[in-house]
Structure formats: C-alpha cells, structure tokens
C-alpha cells in the first residue's frame, strides 16, 4: 500500500522512484530538484556509489526534473493519483532558466 507523504499541511503531489543499481551519484538530481526533495545517502549500491534518497517527500511535486536530468536513467518522478486527478496537465513546468 502506498501512503502519500504528508508533513503538516503539505501533501506530496508526486513521488520519486529510484533505480538504485543504475545510479552513479553524479548529484544532478539533488542539485536540480526545485524543492530540494533529495540528498545523497550514505548507503552504497553494489558499484560503490551513494545513491540519492528522499529527505522531504512531502515537497515532491512530481515534476520529473530529476528524471530529465539523470544521465543514468536511475530516478524519475511521477505525480500522485490525487494530484493527477486535480490537474489535467500531465507535467508541471518549472525550475529551468
């Protein structure tokens, strides 16, 4: 069962999925997430890299910028079903120059 993260009043509009074994810890996703959802973890994958982990799940908007930046196809964001139902648009723009 998937629980939509919530901290205080802030309900996550999206969720992040991480393919741990593909990650090479480049740090793009951590840097370019507009709401600073991610940080590199202290755990290792089998290649010895520190994959990211979600530190502020409630702030995720499901914009998938992490997915767009990831050179290793190791992370992506999707909108939660509630958020999808609320907004007809498939993607949220934002974060770029």
């Amino acid at each position, binding site marked *: 069962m*998937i629980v939509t993260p919530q901290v205080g009043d802030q309900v996550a509009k999206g*969720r*992040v*999925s*991480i*393919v*741990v*074994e*593909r990650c*090479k*810890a*480049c*740090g*793009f996703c951590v*840097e*370019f997430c507009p709401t600073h959802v991610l940080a590199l*973890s202290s*755990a290792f994958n089998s*290649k010895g*890299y520190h*994959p990211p*982990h*979600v530190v502020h*799940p409630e702030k995720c908007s499901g914009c*998938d*910028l992490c*997915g*767009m*930046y*990831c*050179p*290793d*196809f*190791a992370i*992506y964001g*999707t909108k939660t079903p509630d958020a999808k139902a609320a907004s007809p648009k498939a993607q949220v*723009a934002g974060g*770029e*120059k």
Partner: protein
Amino acid sequence: MLNVLEDNTVNPVEPFLRSDRMPHIWCPGCGIGTTVNSFARALIESKIDLDSIALVSGIGCTGRVAGYVKLDSFHTTHGRAIPFATGLKLANPKLNVVVYSGDGDLSAIGGNHLIHAARRNIDLKVICVNNLIYAMTGGQTAPTTPGHATTSTNPYGTFEPAFNLPHLVDAAGAVYVARWTTFHVRQLARSISEAFAKKGFSFIEVISPCPTLYQRRNKMGDGLDTMKYYKEKSKVKNGAPTGEVGLTLNGEIAVGKFVDRERPDYQTLMRAQYVESLGERYIEVTGEAEPEMECACG
C-alpha cells in the same frame, strides 16, 4: 536511509531504452544520458511512430547511444553516420532518420559528410553531443576543443582555433540550427521536437560535460560543477548570428535556436527535377515494400 518506493510507476524514458543493457558505460556526471532523456521526451511529445525512426551513430562515447535506445539503430564507422543515414533515407523516404553522434565524429573525420549533407539539405535530424574532446579514446584534442585547454595530444595547451559548429552548418545550408547544454533539458527536448517537425537538415548541438577527461584535465571540477557552470554562463540568444556564438575556455555559452529557415530538402528537389525532366517516366521511391514476386518456375 534509502527511500526506494516499490510502486507500479514506469520511468517515462524506459520504453525507449534497451533495459537489458543497463547500466550503461558512460561515466558518472557525463551528460550523454541526459541528452537521451531529452530525446525520449521529444519522441513522446512529437508522437512519432517509433517504428519509423532509424537512429544512426558513429564512434565515440556519444556513438554508444545507438546501442542503448530501443529503436532500429545502427552503430556505424567513425565519421560516417551521416552518409549511412543518407542511404537509409533515400532507400526508404518514410523513415525518420536521426544521427546521434559526437563532436569529433561529426566534425573531424566526419566533417566532409557533415557539410555535404547540410549543403544537400538531406532530411536528417542530427544531434551532436559536444563535449569538446575525444572522450572514448582518452581525451585528445577535437576540432571543437577551445584554445588553451589541456588535452592528451596538446599537453601544453591547445593553440588551434576551434570550430564554431553552428556557424559551420549554417554556412553549409542547414535549415535548423540550435545549441543547448545538458542543463537545458526542456529546451533541448523542444528543439528536438521542432527538428522532427521540420523537413531538411537539422543540427542540434548539445554542450555536455566530460568529467573524466576534459573537465578533469582542465581542473573544471566534476559533472555537477560543469552543469552549474552551464547554468551560470549560458545566455539564451535565439536568432543570434551564428558567427558570434563561438565558445571559449571558460566564457559565455550562447545557446538557443539560431537558425530556422525554409529550404526544399534533397528529396523534394530531386522529385521536382525528375518530374520536370522525365514526366510520367519517373517512378518515385516511396519506401513501400515491394510485392513479393513469385518465381515463374514455381
């Protein structure tokens, strides 16, 4: 604390990848994979029939893209992706032919083919990932390496003037010329979509980090540092004269859509010429499969 969610979501890029070949060989912080994300998004946006796409690459790090995308893909010889792509397109005009290769492959050994295909305005979508170096072979000088950079074949610093690729292909006749960096993921996706909608020779340069060689040898930090540099130093200059968008070692990066013009593509010109000269005798190549002809002897 790892937070991997087990859910039924699918990475939007996954259907375009040969997942059985992941993880790929590109280095941590290399931008090539990022360009593939933009490419995949453009394919989704453009709603192109994936069966109609043929992707051709040359040799080099970017050349490996062909092996990782789940499309009809051809990993050809060094510098010759464009002529191979030309053959594909002429034999089957229905194909959407993409050339995905690196700056060394396309502008050094492949330079002649680059300018002729642009001159002819062959309907190809060329994505040139420019990491300013020959990466796969260990970091040698490329025609695009900016002056005073250190490379393995210019250990005391380069002194050759570098190509300004948008200017080169613009002068040769390309109808769509754009440059982005791997920071500009959305704009890149949009440019690729625009190229798909356009008939003729389209050239999209993407400046990308090579943290292992170019950035490391020139003490420019890692991939992330380079992405931050792109963010800080890029200036969007849509429509800028391509002669003014050359790159320097640590300077400003002019990005944007520089050229978007109309010129009849090679096959349009060819058809017009043959129709005029041959009239009804002209039988056009359509790309339809020939009906099987049975042997008369049974």
